[in-house]
């Protein structure tokens, strides 16, 4: 789980942060904080599905479920067999 959190956090930092000085934690609000928009959520979902060989149903990939790294990892773990 700890390793997954770091992988997801690093992906979000590399993918979405324009300002190198900005600091993100596992609980930083990504969607409600304006860091990840609804278009960009798509690539995050695809990254998770490819990385962990899972399929997240569209109705589970809500802005709330994707709002922090902790919540994302919890969601991913539900689908890892």
């Amino acid at each position: 789980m700890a390793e997954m959190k770091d992988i997801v956090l690093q992906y979000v930092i590399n993918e979405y942060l324009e300002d190198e000085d900005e600091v993100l934690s596992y609980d930083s609000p990504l969607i409600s904080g304006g860091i990840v928009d609804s278009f960009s959520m798509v690539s995050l979902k695809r990254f998770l599905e490819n990385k962990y060989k899972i399929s997240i149903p569209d109705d589970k990939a809500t802005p709330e479920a994707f709002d922090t790294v902790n919540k994302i990892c919890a969601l991913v773990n539900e689908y890892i067999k």
Partner: protein
Amino acid sequence: MAYSDKIRGIYTGTLNEIKEKGIFKQERPIHSAQAADIEVEFPMGSDLKKVINMCANNYLGLSSHPDVIKAAHAGLDSRGYGMSSVRFICGTQDIHKELEAKVTKFLGTEDTILFPSCMDANAGVFEAILTADDVMISDRLVHASIIDGMRLCAALHDTFKHSDMAHLEEKLQLHADKRLKVVITDGVFSMDGDTAKLDEMVALCEKYDAMLFVDESHSSGFIGKTGRGTHEKCGVVGKIDIITTTFGKALGGASGGCVSGRKELVEMCRQKARPYLFSNTIAPVVVSGVNTVLDILSKSTERRDKLEKNTEFWRNGLAEAGFVLKEGDTPIVPVMLFNAKLSQDFSKALYEEGVYAIGFFFPVVPQGQARIRTQVSAGHEIHHLEKALEAFIKVGKKFDILGKTKQEIIAMYGN
């Protein structure tokens, strides 16, 4: 009465919020033809003022060219004022087909379809050629009309960091399983004036079996040795699958746009693109004008050569004066001020000095990236640019930003 006080209050409140944020847009009526010298009424109701226009998309100075006006008159006389129809019912004239053939030849593509505007071309093209099985991968700084077009399309949408080829390659790998992939970019980016790396993008698209889409609205007519566009500059003519462009900027400046590219994709637009199917044909007077514009540009590179020299003069002059500029070599030369209010105050002071140039700030450009976007034209003579430069230097001194770095300007005015 359906339009109650409650309804009016909601809209008044929203408009007031826009005003309070300082982003309320006001028109500035011009009482002359579009040219380097214009007469402007600003604010509304004030006396007319003669100013040098440094913010038109009239890159080649063809908006009021005598040969184009003559051709428009001839088109009006021979083909009438309007067609009162969409293209596929009874709105296609011989001159529309002539223009499509000329654009195809000019851009070096397989076929072309006209749209009422490039906004319409971008709004219609993606939905016409892609389905939910496909993916669109766009540069993060593409024009708003492309974003709208992608929103109307069922295909998956993803983005890559501006002009970051390594990031684009990651995205092409991520979406390798999709039926069709389209990489989407502007040729010249309208707010920054930089150019897409089309040669590298073509190589990546070939490697990953993706199509390449380029909006050439700020390039057609003057970028590349013979003005064909960014694909000519990058040496990839014939390798761009979809080009959209406008006739509302360098190519006469009136209106209209097109999708030009692979013949099957153009045919898909004729069958399915909604702005083509459900909006009126381009007026004959405009079509006649653009036909002549393309004749002028196919015969001589004189105008784009003059624009290149003017751009060099303008960019060097501003740089030597000590302004912070966005790097590039196109006629879009952004003078960076970073602070939104400074950009508005600077624009007003320029106007007082006889120069018309607009300040842009968030959300049109990213937060903290406010600027005056200047645009050079072949319609400018050196004396116009010398006078405009004098005004910029005078105003630059007034605000004490000449020779200052980005950090120093932000320290003085904030961002």
